[in-house]
């Protein structure tokens, strides 16, 4: 077993940096802390927050990215959520969307359920898995300089899907709760994109 990298970045600051000057970015969040982090950075009609369906975030992002090839879709999720959808990385790799970016806020723990250590906390390297699957870019960042390079990269197109693991502290900032009505969140994003509500 390889040793786990311990994160030192603050998750709220990481998300706030990535969403600064977001322009046309569409954002899908994985359940738990990533949804709170994105909400804390400022609610936006271009956000779709998951409150359940663990493992769905990256794949909701894939469907959205395929439907809106002119927009960049950023998925913000946690290590536990992405680990539950591990097969989805293979599905995304072969679908090869150039406008999909997955950001995994990796604290090495399942924070929502009591901070038990997760697979990444025990040494599993999500970026290496995505890289082996064929992502165009799959890197782990551990410091501010790395975060700045991710912030720049998501504003550019790539040759395929990208996954960034950002190592963050195992902490639980005060919850910032987004709306939980799935129909509202769905219709809000669709209206934002100019689609009619049934």
């Amino acid at each position, binding site marked *: 077993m390889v040793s786990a990298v311990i994160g030192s970045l603050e998750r709220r600051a990481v998300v706030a940096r990535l969403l600064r000057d977001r322009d046309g970015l569409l954002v*899908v969040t994985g359940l738990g802390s990533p949804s709170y982090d994105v909400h804390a950075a400022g609610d936006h009609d271009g956000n*779709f927050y*998951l409150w*359940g*369906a*663990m*493992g*769905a*975030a990256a*794949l*909701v*992002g*894939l*469907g*959205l*990215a*395929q*439907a*809106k090839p002119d927009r960049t879709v950023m998925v913000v999720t946690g290590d536990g959520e992405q680990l539950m*959808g591990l*097969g*989805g990385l*293979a*599905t995304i790799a*072969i*679908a090869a969307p150039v406008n999909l970016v997955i950001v995994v806020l990796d604290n090495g723990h399942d924070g929502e359920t009591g901070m038990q250590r997760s697979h990444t906390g025990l040494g599993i390297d999500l970026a290496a898995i995505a890289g082996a699957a064929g992502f165009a870019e799959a890197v782990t960042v551990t410091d501010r300089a790395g975060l700045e390079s991710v912030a720049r990269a998501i504003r550019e197109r790539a040759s395929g899907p990208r996954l960034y693991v950002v190592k963050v502290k195992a902490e639980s900032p005060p919850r910032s709760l987004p709306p939980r009505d*799935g*129909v509202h*969140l*769905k219709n809000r*994003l*669709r209206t934002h*994109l*100019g*689609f009619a509500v*049934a």
Partner: protein
Amino acid sequence: MRTIAIDDRAAASEVGPLDWPKELYRVLKQHEVRQMSYVPDAGHSRLIELFLADTDVVSNLLTTEEEGVAIAAGAWLGGQRSVLLMQSSGVGNCINMLSLATIGRFPLLMLVTMRGEWAEFNPWQVPMGLATEPALAAIGVRTLRADTPADLVETVRSAAALAYGADQQVAVIISQRLLGTKQW
């Protein structure tokens, strides 16, 4: 009405059996389906081939069926209709993910080929075959069963209207009797 019945039989033998995969493809195209996701399946093989040859539809090969439920939700957020093809065993993989479709009232059209119910040779297919429709009902997905090719085409037409028009989560159950017995 005996003569009519004879005429029907004669007509059927002239045109051959209904090419239902091609008809389903036609119906789904009429409903402007733009994304299709699938797990390889013998019953759906021809429909999968038709979609894979269609450059106007994005097709996603899945590692497990629940991924398709999430992709369908994302597609709808981005304004596109989708269809998810799977075998009955895959329904069991989807249950928690279907909460996304039901609580968000996302249009969802699943076409499910049945195993474990008609002249099944493999006992391991039987438990999930028994559980397919009750499991879907339990999570809030409507099931519409079709036992003949002609009925299947009309059922998919109706299910597509329910899904995309009325924001419903619908699974069309394609009976194993319709698909024929797998040769071992």
